[in-house]
Every structure is written in C-alpha cells, then in structure tokens.
C-alpha cells in the first residue's frame, strides 16, 4: 500500500477545509486548525490498480496576522494550493506560498492550484488573463466548488497522478 503526505495550503478563509470535508475521512475536529494550526484527514484514492492513501494535512490559512508553519510541509509529496476566486489577493498569497514551499524544499514540489468558490459566479474576480499567466507558468489549475463538489475529486486524482508519475 502506498501512502503519501499531501498538504492543503492557501490564504485564510479560501475554503480549504470546506473543500475537503465531504470528500475525506476525518476524526479530528476543525478546532485543531485554530489551535495546532493543522488538521489531519485521510483520502483513499485509486490510480489504475494502485491503492494510494493520501494523508491530508490541512494547514491553517495564512493571512497578515499569522504565517503558515512551514515545518508542517516537511515530507509532503505534493500539495493543493487553494485560492478564493472571489478574492484576487488570495492568488497573490498563493503565489507567495508556492515560492516559500519551493524554497523550503529546495526543489519544485508537485502541486495543483484550486480556484475555489466557483459557484459564486457573480462575485468571481479572477480574469482569464491571470489564469493564462499561471498556465504559462505550467501550473495546473482546477476550478472547484465546496458547495457543488465540482472539481474536487479531479484535483485529488490529478495531484496523485503527478506525485506517483514522478
């Protein structure tokens, strides 16, 4: 059996926790996020014939007041970088975080960018230009919605494929 540690990172209140709540096995409550700064969940996934268990470290969001604990990233095989599509600043935070992670690991670590809250079309602020710019960076971006469940399974699958296919 293959196990992989992956992290959920992103700015504060981008919906990281809501995004996975319905899709993972969990035993810990959300209060760990505000106390310890991390909550561990589990997501079994199947890539072809291989069973992979993703041990999901949901890290507390980063904002002006609190920085993400990078030590929690140690040993991660990849991560989901979450952005709130209705708040453009969260993309900046994500770009910064990605840099910090690469710096922390000293190498490029597989990740998938999740453009969350895709159901809130009226409030959506991310323009195509910004997305294309990311595509230019060869980032994999997936639009997701915690409300509808859109893109979430795909995100896990894509990231796992990236990790296992490394």
């Amino acid at each position, binding site marked *: *059996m*293959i*196990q*992989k*540690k992956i992290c959920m990172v992103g700015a504060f209140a981008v919906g990281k926790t809501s995004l996975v709540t319905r899709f993972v*096995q*969990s*035993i*810990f409550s959300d209060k*760990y996020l505000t106390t*310890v*700064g*991390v*909550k*561990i*969940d*589990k997501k079994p996934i199947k890539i072809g014939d291989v069973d*992979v*268990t993703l*041990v999901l*470290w949901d890290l507390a969001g980063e904002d002006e007041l609190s920085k993400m*604990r990078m*030590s*929690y990233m*140690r*040993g*991660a*095989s990849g991560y989901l970088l979450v952005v709130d599509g209705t708040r453009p600043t969260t993309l900046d935070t994500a770009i910064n975080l990605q840099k910090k992670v690469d710096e922390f690991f000293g190498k490029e670590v597989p990740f998938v960018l999740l453009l969350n809250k895709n159901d809130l079309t009226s409030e959506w602020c991310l323009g195509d230009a910004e997305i294309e710019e990311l595509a230019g960076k060869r980032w994999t971006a997936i639009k997701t919605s915690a409300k509808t469940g859109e893109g979430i399974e795909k995100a896990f699958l894509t990231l796992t494929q990236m990790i296992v296919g490394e």
Partner: protein
Amino acid sequence: MSDTPTPDNSKNLQEDALSEDKLAEIRTLIIGPEQAQLGKLQERLDNSEMLAKDVSRALPKAVILRASQDKKFVTALTPTIEEVLKSSIKRDPKTLVSALFPVMGPAIRKAVTETLRIMLQSLNQALEKSLSWDGLKWRLEAIRTGKSFAEVVILQSLLYRVEQIFLIHKETGLLLQHVVGEDIAFQDADMVSGMLTAIQDFVHDSFDAQSEETIETIQMGERTVWVTQGTEVVLAAAIRGTAPEVLRSVFQEALENTLLEQGEALESFDGDTVPFEKSRYLLEACLQARYKTKKQKSSPFLWVLLGIIIIAFGTWGFFSVRNHLRWSDYLKKIDTERGIVVTDTGKRDGQYFISGLRDPLAVDPVTLLRGSKLDSEKVISYWESYYSLHPDFIVLRAKKILRPPETVSLELKDSVLYATGQASHQWIAQARYLAQFIPGITEIRGNDLSDIDLKKLITSKDWIENQSLRFTGGSTRLMAGQSDTLCALVKEIKEFQDIARLLDKHFYIEIRGHTDNTGAEERNLLLSRERAEIIRFALIEEGLKVINYKTTGVSSREPLRKDATEKDREYNRRVSFNITLADIPTTEGN
C-alpha cells in the same frame, strides 16, 4: 627520435641495469624476510581454501563475542536462517518435521494448557468480580459507558497496558506499521500518526527547541504516549496506566532492531509501507501489560457467607449440644427405670441408637423418649423382651397373671408369694396352680387367705341344721305356714349342694323325724320315720337330687323343748336336718 641505441645510451642502460640489480640485492638483504612473509600472507588471502580455514578457526569465538555484545548479530542472521528454513521446507519438509516432531507435541500441549489456564483464570476473575461490590460497581459502569463488562474489569484491574504501537516515518509523519492489543478500540491510525507528528512539530516550533530535543512523553489522564526517536522513524507507544521506566528500553530495542531490519526500505521509502509488515513481530513484542495482583481483601459477600456458615454451624452446634444433653438425660432416666437393661448406646449416621432388654411390664421407652423432647425419628430403639426378677416386677407379673380379686393382696418375700384377704375357692385353686409358672416365685402361701366359698358352705350348713319343719299333732301333715320354710330350705339345700360340689366336698344329709312325747313310743318312732320320709319325698318333689340322704326317726328322744305345754309340743313335732361333710378342709392354704 630514433629507437636505435647509441653507444652512449647503451652505456647508460647498462649502468641503470647494474644499479637496479644492486638495488634489488640491497632490497633483498634489508626486507627480504618480510617480503617473503608478505608473499605468504598474500597467498593465504588469495587462496580461498586457506582463508576458509583461517576464518573457521576464528568464527566460533567471533560469534560468541558478538552475540554477547548485543542482539544485532541475531537480527542480522534471522533473514538468512529464515531463508534457509524456507528452502529446506520447500526441498523436503519431512526433514524439518522429523526434527521438530519431539518438540511440537509438548509445545502444543503447553499452549493448550496455558490457554485453558488463562481462560479459567479470567473466568474466575469474572466470577469473583461478578459477586463482589466492585463487580456491581463495574457492571453499572459498563452499562453507563456502553463498554463490555470484561473490558471494564480489565481496565479496573490494570496496572498498565501498552495498547498501541505506531511506527511513524519521521519525515512524512506517515504510518509505517501499527499494532494494537486485543479488544482495544482505536481511531484511524494513519490520521493519528499524522497528528502525532504535527503536534511534535507544533511543540518543537512553538518552544523554539533545539533540533535534537523532542517530545518523549504525552500525558493525558491515565493515558500516556511514549515517543522513542530513531534516526528515520519514531516509535510511539500508547499506554494506559502507569508503565515502568524499564519499558522504554524495550521500545528502544524494538526500534533499533526495526532500523536494522528496515535500513534499506527506509532509505528508499516513498510511501510504500508493505516492506514494514515484516517487522510487525518486533512491535507486537512491545504490547506488554501488567495487571494488579489479586488483593487479599475479602468481599462483603464473603463475610455474609461466613456469617451464614457461622450461624448455620452455631445453630447446628446448639441443636447438636441440646440434643446431646437431652439424649444424656434420656439415658440417665432410662437407666434408673426398673425392668430395663441398656446394653448399647451411641450415634450412627446422625441418629442415636439404643438397645437392650426390657420387661414387658416396665415403662415404655417411647413414653420416656417423648418426655425427653428428643425427636423420636432420630432415635432408633431395639428392645429385647425379658423377665425382670425384681420383687416389684414379680408381684406385678403375679398380679397380671393371677388377676386377684380386690379383696386379695399379694406380697413377695424370699421368692414366696404371700396372699392375704378373701378369695373364691376357684381363684385360690387357680392361683396355686398358676403360681408355679410365674418366674421368680417358688410357691404361694395363703395362710391369711380365707376361702369365701368354704365359709358360705359352713354358713349354709349351719343355717340348714338350725331349721325345722313342724307338723300337726299325731300326723305327717305340715303345720300351716311351714311350706314357706320348706321352700326356703329347698333353695338353701340346693345352694349348699352346689357349693359343696364346687368345693369338691362329700356330704350326707340326715333328715331326722321327731314327735312329741304324747302317745306310744312305737307309734311315735314310726311317725317320726314317716315324717322324715315325707320331707325326703317333698325334697325330691322340689327337684333336689337326694343321693346322699338318709332318713332317721328318733321319736321324742331329742325334744327341742321340754314337753310342758302345747306350744312346746308343737316345736317338738318336727323334722330337722343334720349334715355331715366329709373331709372338711381347713382354711389353710396348703
């Protein structure tokens, strides 16, 4: 440049060769012996056969030396030996089976015995707890918490128990291996493993600890997590209760052995946890537990039981003693009773028994038993009949057999029964006869015993002899009113005859005829005879048998009165009776 040597060159070469030879000679002289030795050593090292010989000499000592240092040699050899065993079994399982056969039998037996023993022990414990106050408390707790009773019992009597062992990859926090004790509820180990790592990181970061410093213990109530750090892995043990510090060395050793076994797998670890399955046994050895030794505190139920037993014994003792006292009283009482001889007493199968001899006239032992308040069903009596020769009993027996009338009293003196008072002739005769058969009586004496029938006979005789039937002058005709006297006489004579017959007496009744002194003597004699005859006939006519009767005429020779007046003559003209009893017995008993 040309390859052809010039004369100069050739000279130089010759010199060089010469110096080379000299150098070789010098070398041989200086380090010749060492060189030879080195050559030999090289040869030994190159020659595998010689090398094997050398190693074989040192191997046993080396093995002992290494094994005494630590267990690494064992751990290193284990995979090889396992492979050897596997290959041997694959090739020919019989060899190993034959080798193991003598060991397997006893081993299986031991395992079965051990399992049974544990089962019995837990059954005992469960039973014991079920009946105690603690048991009741724990049963309530089991209901309240929804745990099984067995689980509550185990938790309450636990000193410590290693419930779970996590082997965690240090870098990723991924769970490499997880072992759990039996019947222990646990959360998803993968997530717990991650969180445990996260918390360690959190603490480490939060308190700016040095990188070597790590969490060793996490304590929460009666649960503790002991963390043993290795180079690439962490061994976390979840313990319930208070474990001894010595347990840390157990974990340390397990961790070291795992590292030794899994060195390669850890180096190339990429999320695949399958290879670590092999080291599971090392972790399982860490699942140790110790339970409280049984306290000698006895349960209240035991006291109640003891109380019941004491009361039961007390009651039993009380009744037993009381019965014994009653039994003794009964024996004393029966011992004083006349006509009863006790030959054996005792107690058998919870019942008293008594046996002996008893005169039928003695008091009934059953009556005595009733009086003693002993449960008659608990006493077995066996009485053989006998005749007691105690004077009281002889008299009693005599009374029972002889049935004397109330007018007779009996007394025994020196085996002679003295009868006093009055009794019928028949009884006296019967008593004389029966007395000889009564044990303890040699004879019966009735000196002071009067025969009522004999008395009556005499009285009757006297009465008859005092009567006279008067006749009119010069005739054989009875005077008026004399027929009543005749009637009374007939009745009396009949009775007399009956009594005489009863008493076996012979009698003669003489009917004597009398005349007055008037008239001629001859005539008077005749008249007197006739008068006697007349009466005899009259008696016959009245139905009397007159076998022993005699009639006599005595004329006027036996006047009743002097023939002075007519009145006197009237008295003298009569018939009188004279009775003779043959062999009149005296009243003497003999």
